[in-house]
């Protein structure tokens, strides 16, 4: 049988990164083919090539065995490719119904047929089980609802290839279940589905075959029945999971951060927690739960009320390095010195030399590569960029570090190093509050996990109770 969609020897290079290095991939009609890999493995790049968004440097794409060139997303759409992208590709200022039919609104005599728009949007919205007024502005919806709109958009006409890129990332268990139902139904109708995820656990629910990517190369393709979860994880990370996290945990000391009844409108409500010296405490929640916003509320970046007591200095490492954490045009040294500018000279003056010397100390302490204060920070890998942001707070003398999604977009090797670093900082008496939607990370790293759902702490787990299933069960309750 000729495959529906094929990629042969696809290579794609971005400045400084070889995202795909000769990848083969094959999708048959009526199958769910899972694409598994860590962040940065090349999954999303491959999908963007299928969606006509990137052109491969070399290699070939074939539909029904015939080579094609996809010059634009419009080409891919014409070939029946429907992409549910990871970043919400929706227009917040337009209505839900219009977003579902974006780019192909039904028309009558040259005009948009608004009753037809509402009618045509109703079916796919019902199919994903979203019960909202289709006339309402999309930006007013919750994040998980927006994700479902995104899926509905891909279902709104007859596609032959459906690509779901981390589609369940912000969905609850029941919503994910409904999505799987839709996927199985489409498979029955001969649609080829590419299912991208980094959650191995989900695969049994939907996938027929699975291809694992690592560092832009294909590690292997196998029938799901012929492989095991452990083997897939090993293929994905290239090493055993347990080795990622620091083993030794210090005895906790004095309380460093006490939060009581912290409430910020639309984000969190009545959050209380305590972090002692030497402790790593985690806030876990699915995307959209509000967990990753709580550090901002504690740091005073968003208006909140409640009681926050800090013994020492706070440092906030934000979730989005590029837009919130880094000064992307500046050097590593200036990124590290940015919170301590009053210390590099007599009052009112700034001496670049002192900043550079200070940066050198932090670079050595953090083992930041390359070890040069004047290297442009934009050229660094994700892990080293994160170290530069951490270095800024260590330079400032922060005792309590608040981190939001510290390893998002960081590859496995650098991730292990950040974990080791956090372990060392705690051993040295600092305190860490880590907000994350990465289950492995919070279970592997934290002494205590506060599980957040809809802005509230719904469970606090530690010791024996701190297991994957318990955390996930609480988060989706």
């Amino acid at each position: 049988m000729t495959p529906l969609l094929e990629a042969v020897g696809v290579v794609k290079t971005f400045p400084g990164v070889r995202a795909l290095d000769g990848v083969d991939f094959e999708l048959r009609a009526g199958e769910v083919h899972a694409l598994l890999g860590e962040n940065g493995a090349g999954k999303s790049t491959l999908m963007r090539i299928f969606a006509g968004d990137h052109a491969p440097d070399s290699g070939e794409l074939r539909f029904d065995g015939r080579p094609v060139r996809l010059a634009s997303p419009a080409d891919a759409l014409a070939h029946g490719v429907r992409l549910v992208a990871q970043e919400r590709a929706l227009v917040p200022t337009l209505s839900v119904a219009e977003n579902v039919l974006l780019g192909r609104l039904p028309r009558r005599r040259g005009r948009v047929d608004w009753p037809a728009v509402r009618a045509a949007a109703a079916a796919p919205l019902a199919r994903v089980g979203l019960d909202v007024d289709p006339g309402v502005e999309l930006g007013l919806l919750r994040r998980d609802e927006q994700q479902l709109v995104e899926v509905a958009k891909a279902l709104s006409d007859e596609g032959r290839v459906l690509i779901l890129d981390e589609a369940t990332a912000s969905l609850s268990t029941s919503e994910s279940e409904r999505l799987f139902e839709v996927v199985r139904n489409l498979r029955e109708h001969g649609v080829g589905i590419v299912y991208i995820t980094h959650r191995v656990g989900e695969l049994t629910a939907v996938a027929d075959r699975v291809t694992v990517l690592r560092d832009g190369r294909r590690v292997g393709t196998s029938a799901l029945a012929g492989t095991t979860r452990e083997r897939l994880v090993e293929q994905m990370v290239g090493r055993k999971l347990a080795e990622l996290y620091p083993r030794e945990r210090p005895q906790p000391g004095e309380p460093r951060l006490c939060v009581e009844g912290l409430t910020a409108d639309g984000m969190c409500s009545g959050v209380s927690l305590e972090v002692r010296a030497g402790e790593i405490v985690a806030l876990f929640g699915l995307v959209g739960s509000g967990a990753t916003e709580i550090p901002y509320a504690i740091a005073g970046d968003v208006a909140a009320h409640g009681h926050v007591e800090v013994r020492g200095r706070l440092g906030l490492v934000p979730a989005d390095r590029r837009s919130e954490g880094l000064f992307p045009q500046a050097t590593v040294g200036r990124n590290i010195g940015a919170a301590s500018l009053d210390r590099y000279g007599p009052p009112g003056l700034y001496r670049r030399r002192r900043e550079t010397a200070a940066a050198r100390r932090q670079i050595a302490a953090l083992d930041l590569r390359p070890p040069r204060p004047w290297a442009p920070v934009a050229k660094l890998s994700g892990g080293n960029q994160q170290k530069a942001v951490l270095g800024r707070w260590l330079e400032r003398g922060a005792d309590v570090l608040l981190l939001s999604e510290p390893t998002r977009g960081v590859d496995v090797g650098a991730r292990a190093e950040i974990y080791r670093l956090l372990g060392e900082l705690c051993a040295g008496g600092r305190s860490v509050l880590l907000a994350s939607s990465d289950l492995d990370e919070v279970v592997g790293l934290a002494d205590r996990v506060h599980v957040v759902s809809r802005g509230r702490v719904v469970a606090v787990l530690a010791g024996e109770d701190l297991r994957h299933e318990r955390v996930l069960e609480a988060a989706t309750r």
Partner: protein
Amino acid sequence: MSRRLAVRALRSPELYLFVVLAATIAWFSIANPFFGTSANFTGLAAGAAVLGIAAMGVTVALAAGSIDFSIAATIALAGVIAAWLDGHVGGAPAIAGALVAALAVGVVNGAVVTRFGINPFIATLAMAGTLRGIAFLVAGSSAGIVVEDGPIVTLGQHELAGVPLPILAFAAVALVAYLLLAHTPAGRALLAVGGNPEAARLSGISVAGAQRWGYIASAGAAGVAGVLLAGRTGSGLPQAAAGQELLVYSAVILGGTSLWGGRATIVGSVLGILFVETLRNGLILERVSPYWQTILQGVFLIVAVWLVRQQQLGRDPVWLAERVGRRLRRGPPAEAR
């Protein structure tokens, strides 16, 4: 359902601005007996028509996120070209020539911004200077070119059934712009591109194409405005409309259109222009000195934009009523969602 409709109506920015406008008109009517006369209103509306037409084009362009600061210079250039051609080839071809020139400006603006990737602020400001220079060259002097009686003057000064033609032209352009944005696939594509270019692109909509059409719309509308202005004043002045692009943009933003694209309201822009012109007209009637006029216009504009901004932040009359109601019942504050 009817309550929801009522809430929606109360929350619409246009209604809010309408109330602000009505209050301003009421204020001036009490302060000056002449203000409320139909002769004054007609004159006010005819004056508003020129900038109003330009504002329609700006609103369409902003829908796609295209910012065009060369509209005032385009108005002047179209007026000068219309006046010059009028003396050489006659009125009707002169009007056509001026409009073609204006559309060409839009094509160039769009190409410079989308093809060469030049920042729109810089590109259109540079274009404004260039166009002003061309207008002076064509006019030959700052005295401008006199337009003799003919089609152009008729457009600018005559009436149909008691309504000045510029007002009718404004109404027609506003209607076309409204239909375009609300009821055509092209208009919805503009709004999609302005709201999220990435999403529009992935949906098969040409982002650069939408932006180019945005510039053509703003320049074309400015061309119509320029011809009307030449007709109203009976001359093509190279310095016409100088500095008025800021007035137009304030009026459009006041109406609820976003400077960053994706949100555009024609009704709001019409109300915004009427508000700005009412302010100007009222202050003139009050014999406020021209210096104070500009100062007061600035202050009023900031207050009005602040009021509308409150509304956009959700602090609208419904919000106020709920808050007051809660206070009266001594209920607890709303919980976080």
